[in-house]
């Protein structure tokens, strides 16, 4: 044993130099005085909690888990992980029915999907919103994402034979949003991949990545999902497939949260999980494949980087890809959390904070006045569409509409 060779113990919080840059960059601190900020809630708090669990502070629930603290930390402290782990270890608040509903994205999706027109009609009604607000504390300003009548999985399964014809293959982790709410993004993804000469397969059976479960305190279920997904991902990887995703949050969860937070070993699959934009950009950049773009495509696009994509450090792939499209006038929006953070902004108690966090971003979008906004995250999309009125498109969907049919 080498004594004191590394002073980084199992407790990564010790590397904190108390510079407080995490708190300066935290989007919640300026809008919610009840939140002690990442430094206090994370490394400082952990030291106290190790002394006595009584030091656990319920205000940790105000953390968005946006991970901006981890992005800015010069010492590599996993601040948000420390906070989420503390919630897992010491938090004793049981998730409410509302939280369970919001967190169970795949369960709700599978129940709602067969009755999609009815569900969509009802959730959009003013009276429903009032009832949800009053009984479940889901803020009345929010509209539930619409459910699709046919799941993406079914759509792709019907096309599995034609997809199998391609020499090159990738696996696709579509996530709950694509499957139940917005299969069009999945279809756009398949269109782009096919145009690149690549066929798309489903994983054997994917489950929700678990991010909403983690955020709502349903850790056991999240861990179960993670264990299931790692097995499914491993099968694809063993078959020589790269697993592509279109959701930056699902990607961050499967790559980072599984081992760090849920303690589920993903070493065998982690490096094979890639965001589609990164994979495609590398193909195009290296010249290994080409896309034929429409000649008359014109669009003024403002791009918003989702926080979890910033944590991955991969925003550059999405933006460079968009800039490759001829006829695109590109504006990079300032780094700023939109405030929704998955299910966080849906909760009545967080609505005001959520909108206050996103305000600078909303204002900037309005002043740029693009044709539409681009973003890799589904929940940022809901937030920006609701708060600005601008349409938000996924970079893959933009690619799909810019290439020749």
């Amino acid at each position, binding site marked *: 044993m080498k004594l004191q*060779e590394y002073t980084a113990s199992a407790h990564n919080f010790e590397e904190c130099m108390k510079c407080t840059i995490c708190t300066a960059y935290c989007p919640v601190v300026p809008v919610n005085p009840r939140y002690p900020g990442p430094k206090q809630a994370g490394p400082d708090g952990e030291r106290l909690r190790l002394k006595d669990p009584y030091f656990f502070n319920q205000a940790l629930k105000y953390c968005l888990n946006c991970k901006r603290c981890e992005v800015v930390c010069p010492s590599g402290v996993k601040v948000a992980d420390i906070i989420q782990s503390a919630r897992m270890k010491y938090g004793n608040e049981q998730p409410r029915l509302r939280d369970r509903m919001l967190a169970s994205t795949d369960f709700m999706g599978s129940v709602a999907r067969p009755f999609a027109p009815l569900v969509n009609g009802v959730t959009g009604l003013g009276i429903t919103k009032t009832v949800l607000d009053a009984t479940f504390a889901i803020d009345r300003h929010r509209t539930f994402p619409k459910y699709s009548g046919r799941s993406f999985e079914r759509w792709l399964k019907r096309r599995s034979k034609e997809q199998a014809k391609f020499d090159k293959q990738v696996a696709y982790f579509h996530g709950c949003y694509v499957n139940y709410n917005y299969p069009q993004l999945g279809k756009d993804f398949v269109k782009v991949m096919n145009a690149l000469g690549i066929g798309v397969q489903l994983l054997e059976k994917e489950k929700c990545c678990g991010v909403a479960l983690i955020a709502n305190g349903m850790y056991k279920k999240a861990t179960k999902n993670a264990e299931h997904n790692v097995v499914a991902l491993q099968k694809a990887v063993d078959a020589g497939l790269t697993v592509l995703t279109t959701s930056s949050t699902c990607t961050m969860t499967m790559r980072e949260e599984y081992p760090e937070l849920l303690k589920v070993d993903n070493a065998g699959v982690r490096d094979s999980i890639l965001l589609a934009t990164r994979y495609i950009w590398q193909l195009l950049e290296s010249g290994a494949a080409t896309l034929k773009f429409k000649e008359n495509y014109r669009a003024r696009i403002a791009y918003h980087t989702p926080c979890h994509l910033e944590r991955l450090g991969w925003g550059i792939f999405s933006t460079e890809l968009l800039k490759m499209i001829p006829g695109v006038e590109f504006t990079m929006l300032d780094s700023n959390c939109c405030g929704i953070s998955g299910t966080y902004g849906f909760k009545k108690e967080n609505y005001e904070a959520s909108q206050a966090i996103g305000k600078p971003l909303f204002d900037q979008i309005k002043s740029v006045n693009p044709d539409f906004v681009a973003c890799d995250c589904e929940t940022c999309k809901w937030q920006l569409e609701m708060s600005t009125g601008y349409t938000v498109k996924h970079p893959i969907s933009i690619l799909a509409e810019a290439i020749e049919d």
Partner: protein
Amino acid sequence: MKRNEYDVIIVGGGITGAGTARDCAMRGLKVLLIERHDIATGATGRNHGLLHSGARYAVTDQESANECIRENMILRRIASHCVDETDGFFITLPEDDLNYQAKFVESCLAAGIPAEIVDPKDALRMEPSLNPELIGAVKVPDGSVDPFRLCAANMVDAKLHGAQVLLYTEVTGFIKNGDRIVGVKTYNHQTHKSGEYYAHITVNAAGIWGQHIADLAGVKIGMFPAKGALLIFAHRVNGIVINRCRKPANADILVPGDTVCIIGTTSTKIPFEECDGVRVTPEEVNLLVEEGAKLAPALASTRILRAYAGVRPLVSADNDPSGRNISRGIVCLDHEQRDGLKGFITITGGKLMTYRLMAEMATDMVCRKLSIDKACETAEIPLPGAGVQSFREVAEKIWENPTTVQKAVAGRLGTGAARVQAADSLDQSLICECEEVSVGEINSAIERLDVSGLTDLRRRTRVGMGTCQGELCGCRAAGLLAKAHGCTDRAREDLKEFMTERWKGMYPIGWGDALREAEYTQWVYKHVLGV
């Protein structure tokens, strides 16, 4: 009685002096306590903060062991807010003799110490930081005790019972009347004024410096200065005290104290002249880390906050060069009987956690000499702040939904936390972020606890004792002190001394994250604050 005449003068503001002042004052005496620095600056503030069960001494010294377990139980009652009832393990490692365990348990039980053999696997479950290679474990009622808080609480209570306290005042000589000490000559290091104070009895409670005080009085005490070095780790690695189940040796106790844990000690004989400026050597640091990692392997990679050393106030009894075999027992000397010098007694030896018994013995002697017949009550009457067992209970009694800072202050001051101003957001805002010390707590300490500078403030509130070692709190606290004392120049000078003193403890362990932190601190102070 004149203004500067007292029944008893106590020399020394460590735990022994503070405890004796409290006991004397509670028995109705007019008391003056004189300390040349601040409270708890000597051995009181420079030890493990271990609430011994006595098990460590059970095999070699039954008398000390028995004293320990009795005082241990008393302190849990009267100083509940200073004590953390963690329990302790005595572990046997493969290199130790497991046969020692039986003898150890037998001796503990004989001394009245509950000692229970625990299966190593169960011990690991209860304390996961233990060396997994252990082959034996015995559970005993060890604990940790905060020496600064304990000393301050005794001081406060002494004053509540009418005692007077002079800090930063050094005894420079004695006033004699024939074969009787009738008073002391003093010099105040802050006002630079000399003084004279009179009393029927003077108690020498100056710890290792008692040798010097005795010299001034004209009697000889042969002290045995044994330096002990310790390391503070940045967080609690263990929740239960870990000892080695073998004959007491170097670096074989790991104590979880407040937010940190402390490994120690070493034992080196030093000349008396060096007692004032002990420093920790690289060899001592190595030994502490090496031996410490045998108790809890995590210590090999845990950030170290600082190193410090104290000098045990032992009275030499034999020629053993290591100082380990000298009794840790209490020595109470009546110099009238011993040396024919009336009006002078010395109380020394002992341990932090037997201070109350030492104080009782000294006070009994004082009372005998003054023909006062009043029984000691310090074992029954709780110290200010004590009385409620858990700080959770304290916090929730005072506040409906205690915040982190309120929980922290309840942990430090016990029921006394109710007095800390927390009315508005300024009072509740943080000065020290690592240890959660609020503006209100600092102001209350400045008001009530004889604080003249930042270092004094640290001993009373833990400001600057956390991971950042003064990086964020030093300047803020200096601001509050400047306001309270109405002098910014003094506060600036004070801040410099405080940061230098923080650096002194970091220097011996200046590597890794501790060094990065120190560099960053220097950058903040020099380039951001311009000091």
